[in-house]
């Protein structure tokens, strides 16, 4: 099978893994009221093509004087030279990030984490389920599969948001509905515009429109608010998708990204190097991955 992207082992190993490189914001615009889209390029253009990554990986973003935090990459490695992020204003670091304007610089180091196992997912059907901000890492996977459409099987994209105005990348996904090489199903919990043409209801209601799926041959990728996992996973298990083929990407506090600072530890794993992508089997097996409740209540 042809290699879709080179994964870091031939990348120059930096002496100091904590050294941020400076990147420049080339595009920035609001996606919704409190979520911004950022597109960035390295200040040193020779570095641009060295940033190779897998969908599902993350970087540490530094804002001078504010500190550093992990952010997942929303763009695809199949579109090299840039990184895109989808970021909600939540605290002091993101507030400062929102104050930056196009052409301003900030720090990036990475990529880190395991990312999605793209080599194993090749040739398989792909079912992506995104809820709210969960689209941030899953957009990378979606664009990657679309850009390498011939090496994957059926592609299904389910996306739920609270309201139409809160749906991230709404126009981008509405356009995807026109394409014939994927099934794109969108829903909102509540239509506050009166103009919503798609489904109304929680994201799991989209499973009714899924049609037949080849469960054993499917990889599912899920990301969303904690409350969503239980219900979505229940559906996926009911469909018969094997537990190790149900993947989710998780969030933890991180101070280093490279397995040193300890904050993201869960039993013997570090979310930063062993994750952030875990399988449903991992979740059953490791009690604290997505909190009590999910692993206790969904007995597959």
């Amino acid at each position, binding site marked *: 099978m042809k290699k879709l992207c080179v994964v870091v082992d031939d990348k120059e190993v930096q002496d100091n893994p904590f*050294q941020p490189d400076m990147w420049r914001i080339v595009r920035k615009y609001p996606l919704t009221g409190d979520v911004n889209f950022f597109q960035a390029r390295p200040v040193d253009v020779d570095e641009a093509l060295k940033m190779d990554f897998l969908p599902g990986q993350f970087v540490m973003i530094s804002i001078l004087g504010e*500190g550093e935090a992990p952010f997942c990459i929303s763009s695809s490695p199949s579109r090299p030279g840039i990184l895109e992020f989808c970021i909600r204003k*939540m605290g002091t670091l993101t507030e400062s990030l929102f104050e930056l304007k196009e052409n301003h610089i900030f720090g990036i180091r990475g990529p880190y984490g395991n990312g999605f196992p793209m080599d194993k997912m090749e040739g398989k059907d792909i079912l992506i389920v995104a809820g709210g901000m969960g689209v941030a890492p899953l957009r990378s996977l979606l664009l990657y599969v679309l850009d390498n459409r011939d090496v994957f099987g059926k592609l299904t994209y389910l996306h739920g948001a609270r309201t139409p105005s809160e749906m991230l990348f709404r126009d981008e996904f509405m356009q995807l509905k026109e394409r014939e090489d994927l099934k794109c199903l969108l829903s909102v919990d509540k239509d506050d515009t009166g103009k919503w043409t798609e489904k109304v209801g929680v994201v799991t209601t989209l499973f009714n429109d899924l049609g037949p799926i080849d469960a054993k041959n499917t990889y599912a990728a899920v990301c969303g608010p904690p409350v969503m996992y239980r219900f979505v996973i229940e559906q996926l298990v009911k469909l018969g998708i094997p537990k190790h083929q149900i993947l989710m990407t998780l969030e933890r506090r991180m101070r280093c990204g490279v397995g040193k600072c300890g904050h993201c530890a869960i039993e013997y794993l570090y979310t930063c190097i062993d994750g952030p992508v875990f399988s449903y089997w991992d979740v059953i097996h490791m009690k604290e991955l997505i909190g009590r409740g999910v692993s206790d209540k969904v007995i597959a």
Partner: protein
Amino acid sequence: MMILKMKKEDLSTFLDSVKEWGELWGPTRREGKTTYAKVDSLSQMDMKATRTIIPPKKFLYPPKFTMFDFDEEGYVERMGDVPKRILFGIHPCDIHGILIMDKLFLETYKDPYYAERREKTLLLGHSCIPDDKCMCFATNTDFIAEGFDLFFTDLKMFYLVWVGSSKGHDLVRMRADLFSRELGKNDIINYTEYRKWKYKEYKATVDLTGMPDIFELGYNSIIWDQLADKCLSCGQCSMVCPTCNCYNVVDDIELGTVEGTRDRFWDSCMFREYSVVAGAQNFREKRADRLRLWYTHKLQAFIGEFGKPACVGCGRCVETCPVDINVVTVSTALKEQEVGK
């Protein structure tokens, strides 16, 4: 490994000579406590001391240091201002602790700050006299075969000196006249006697057999809540534990500028904000969850990954915790399903 012999009275001369390589540090008494301090000679050291308050990890990984200086241009790493030090009198348990730190900081994504200090710090180990809190025989860390540059075993009239590294060997070569290669029958007998004697000195113990399974079984045990009712979340256990490596990173900025430093300092998973993510969601809101994480990491997860606990039996948690939560009381409570008084 090379083992040499040195007359007891020559140690002072030897240490005076090797000071040429770097600062000499050793255990000293200060206000009734033992602490590492910079010294001029052996006479200032307290060689009878058992444990220092803080383990020698503080030399390899200081409680607070600057990683980067920054301005609007970006981040410039701050390296190279670390003094060369010779640490004398490090006990086997603490060298075992350093070996665990080596694993965490030097494997996959080598930490250059730790590596630099490790490189510039020579560890001269010394045999010890167990007190009523030492449990290193129970954690299999009462002797040490690697990780040091030199190790001195006190056999009353003389020292047996293990040479653990090329740099340690260089120190020996600075005063080759003080060492002998002649080891005889009596040396072996004396050493065997010393081991027997040391073993008899232990008064405390901890039984960590089966801990991974017992932790798994006891995940929802009420003892975590009972222990949490006592715990103060003060984090002292993390500060004094030779295997606690967690840290926080904070940017310190000069008021009204974009210049400052990125500093790294010790953190503890006992602190409430340890697992907080965006939107103030806290994965370990309850004190019981944090307490369980601390002990799970050392006595379950670490054994699962490396085949041994991340406890070197040094007794510091026993000595330090103001409310008697430590490896002994926690492992016993979990096994017996009852929190001791």
